[in-house]
């Protein structure tokens, strides 16, 4: 097989000077025309395209608590996720999210291989939608090839214009929706209608629109092959029990055409009739019969194509199928593949995932919607009050991380008889998501607050909602 493959590499000879020839190591792109395919897996893909895009396009329009339900407001650094409000201090949750994504990806890839690539990756989804448009406008693979190779006439011009217009409209709508996750989409929509978009908003809408159009319309499989990092390192997560799309070589070879009804087995032929449909439907343009390749995104279009042929030939389905390397080798029957999910590698990923998830959720549940920052005055370490008690001075910053206004009371504990003295009102009124800064003096008995620093705690409690309360450590310097 390797001999065969070597000669398949497309090379351009630049110069031929007799004994040697110079070969260009960059090659122009060979366009792939995936054939329309129907079948079980394609139905699943349609389902995933519709489900994910319904979510993506619809969610920014949802309202909750009188504001956008899902909004990452970068300009004010407030991130609203349904009922939750995240502030920059909650950045740790982003770390948790990234960890979850990473380990989720590891676990998922080990179990399911490239199912993400084939069904849920935005690159696949948008390419798929663009392909639908392409097919509706220009027809299926043969007519697209014919159209592209044909002369430029009014029909070609019309079809191309229609296709690109549809692509661009979809892309712009995608860009608009994406920006709508970062700036309130209803206002954005209004601004767009009256042509009063801000410079940055317009820029990012066009930017993401262009990215969608370029990636899904023109780059397509090249993104997977040359740009996607996941495609490059997913091989490291695979093992011999990972779900892959594979051609059953034992059953299929030797491939070749045959007459219907003839005893092909007697002729030494396998089940593969070499119709090349599996190659024609492949969106990354590979031949799955050459074995597992890193280009394969596991989309199973070839399975659908092959199954339909097998049905026509009256052969059993599954010449190309989802299987694992070990199952294909015959180490265990394919029915047992599910059992293999419980292998140590997957279990370890599962444990790590569970730990991160439980900690994150616990921490989210226990999270107090008030954030406090205490700074001891660095100028005067300790002062003597008029009655001889020792006084320390603090600046207390209270950030109301809730979406309702709250009035907070500040108390201190840690030394017997500790007195809290505030200038002005003794209760701090903080508007939603705002920060209030108050000066606080603590006074302690010099008999107790001896020389050196003493650990104390400030307790900040919302008067109107006592379950909102937080303790913050500070120090009191005596003598």
């Amino acid at each position: 097989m390797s001999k065969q493959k070597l000669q398949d590499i497309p090379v351009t000879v630049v110069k031929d000077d007799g004994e040697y020839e110079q070969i260009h190591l960059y090659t122009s792109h060979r366009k792939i025309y995936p054939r329309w395919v129907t079948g079980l897996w394609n139905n699943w893909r349609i389902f995933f395209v519709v489900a994910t895009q319904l979510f993506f396009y619809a969610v920014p329009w949802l309202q909750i608590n009188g504001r956008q339900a899902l909004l990452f407001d970068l300009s004010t650094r407030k991130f609203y996720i349904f009922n939750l409000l995240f502030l920059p201090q909650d950045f740790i949750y982003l770390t948790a999210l990234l960890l979850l994504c990473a380990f989720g990806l590891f676990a998922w890839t080990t179990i399911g291989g490239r199912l993400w690539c084939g069904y849920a990756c935005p690159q696949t989804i948008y390419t798929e939608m663009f392909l639908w448009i392409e097919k509706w406008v220009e027809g299926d693979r043969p007519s697209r090839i014919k159209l592209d190779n044909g002369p430029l006439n009014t029909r070609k011009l019309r079809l191309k214009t229609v296709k690109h217009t549809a692509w661009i409209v979809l892309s712009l709508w995608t860009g608009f929706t994406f920006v709508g996750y970062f700036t309130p989409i209803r206002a954005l929509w209004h601004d767009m209608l009256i042509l009063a978009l801000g410079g940055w908003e317009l820029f990012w809408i066009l930017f993401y629109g262009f990215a969608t159009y370029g990636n899904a319309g023109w780059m397509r499989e090249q993104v997977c092959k040359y740009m996607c990092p996941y495609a490059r390192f997913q091989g490291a997560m695979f093992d011999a029990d990972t779900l892959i799309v594979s051609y059953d070589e034992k059953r299929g070879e030797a491939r070749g055409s045959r007459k219907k009804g003839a005893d092909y087995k007697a002729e030494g032929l396998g089940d593969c009739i070499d119709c090349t449909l599996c190659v024609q439907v492949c969106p990354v343009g590979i031949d799955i019969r050459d074995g597992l390749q890193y280009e394969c995104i596991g989309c199973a279009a070839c399975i659908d194509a092959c199954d339909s042929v097998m049905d026509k030939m009256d052969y059993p389905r599954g010449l190309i199928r989802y299987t694992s390397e070990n199952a294909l080798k015959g180490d265990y029957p394919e029915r047992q593949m599910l059992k293999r999910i419980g292998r140590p590698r997957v279990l370890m990923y599962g444990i790590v995932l569970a730990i991160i998830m439980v900690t994150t959720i616990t921490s989210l549940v226990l999270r107090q919607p008030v954030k406090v920052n205490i700074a001891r005055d660095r100028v005067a370490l300790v002062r003597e009050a008029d009655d001889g008690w020792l006084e320390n001075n603090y600046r207390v910053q209270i950030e109301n991380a809730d979406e309702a206004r709250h009035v907070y009371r500040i108390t201190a504990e840690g030394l017997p008889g500790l007195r809290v003295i505030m200038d002005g009102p003794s209760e701090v009124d903080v508007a939603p998501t705002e920060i209030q800064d108050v000066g606080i003096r603590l006074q302690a008995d010099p008999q107790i607050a001896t020389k050196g620093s003493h650990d104390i705690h400030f307790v900040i409690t919302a008067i109107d909602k006592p379950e909102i309360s937080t303790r913050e450590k500070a120090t009191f310097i005596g003598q």
Partner: protein
Amino acid sequence: MTDFYSGFWGIFIAVIVIVSLIWLAVLLKSQAVIKLKKGEKAAVLDHKWDGDLQEYNNPLPGWWLWLFILTIVFAVGYLALYPGLVIFGNAKGWTSTGQFKQEVAKADAKYGPIYDKYLNMPITKVSQDKEAREMGQRLFYTYCIQCHGADARGAKGFPNLTDSDWLYGGTPEKILETVEKGRHGQMPAFGAAFGEEKVRDVANYVMQIAGKPHNELRASRGQSTYQQVCVACHAADGKGNKDIGAPNLTDKTWLYGGSEATIIETVTNGRNNVMPPWKDFLGDSKVHLLAAYVYGLSNNPETASK
């Protein structure tokens, strides 16, 4: 470029940059084409993983080459616009100082009007305005707490701004003047002139007029010295002189402390106190807001010290 005293380093940098760019272009060209014996096909690369995993020397997509070329073109353009090639300067006249000034000008244009709004309001009125007080507090936190403390109560040698005791006077005009022009308070050293005994006597007299426990004999001896020397600034009754910032010695407020040892130290070595001027640095409207905030600290019923 004025950053360098001689042209050498400019040339040094420029040569490295230009040679690197040319080298990159040559490298790119040499790596775009390989020479093979006729009939020989693109080979398997030299390395092997996992025993049998090999890599073909596959041609890369052509648009990658164009990306490389584009980066070189971009680099040349960038070097011309910004001072990458030091000796040639830069077409845009870009400097980090200039960029900083631009940012400041932008901020001034944006926030200036907010500050200016209060400039024509009398300080007593500004000090009552909630929004102005918040702005004043932020300014205070940025520029004043290093000496006066976050609660404006000062520290040893730095006056408490929340009481009604003022070295130079607490009227809005005086406070504004203090913030604008700064103050320089000086108490001369009398240690050498008086001698140890006399200093201690004067200190005890000061404690007497302040109503503190003191040595009667020393105080009565110190009185004559006080009346000869100290009256010039602190006045005959010890109430000080706000025109020159001489403190009132008869109240409980002490800038450096009212113990005998501290007073002796003050008289012996003198004191030298500086409040920096802020007008040139902050501009009229911010100084106005700050003065109003400070005035409000002791004259606002809501925030005044209790």
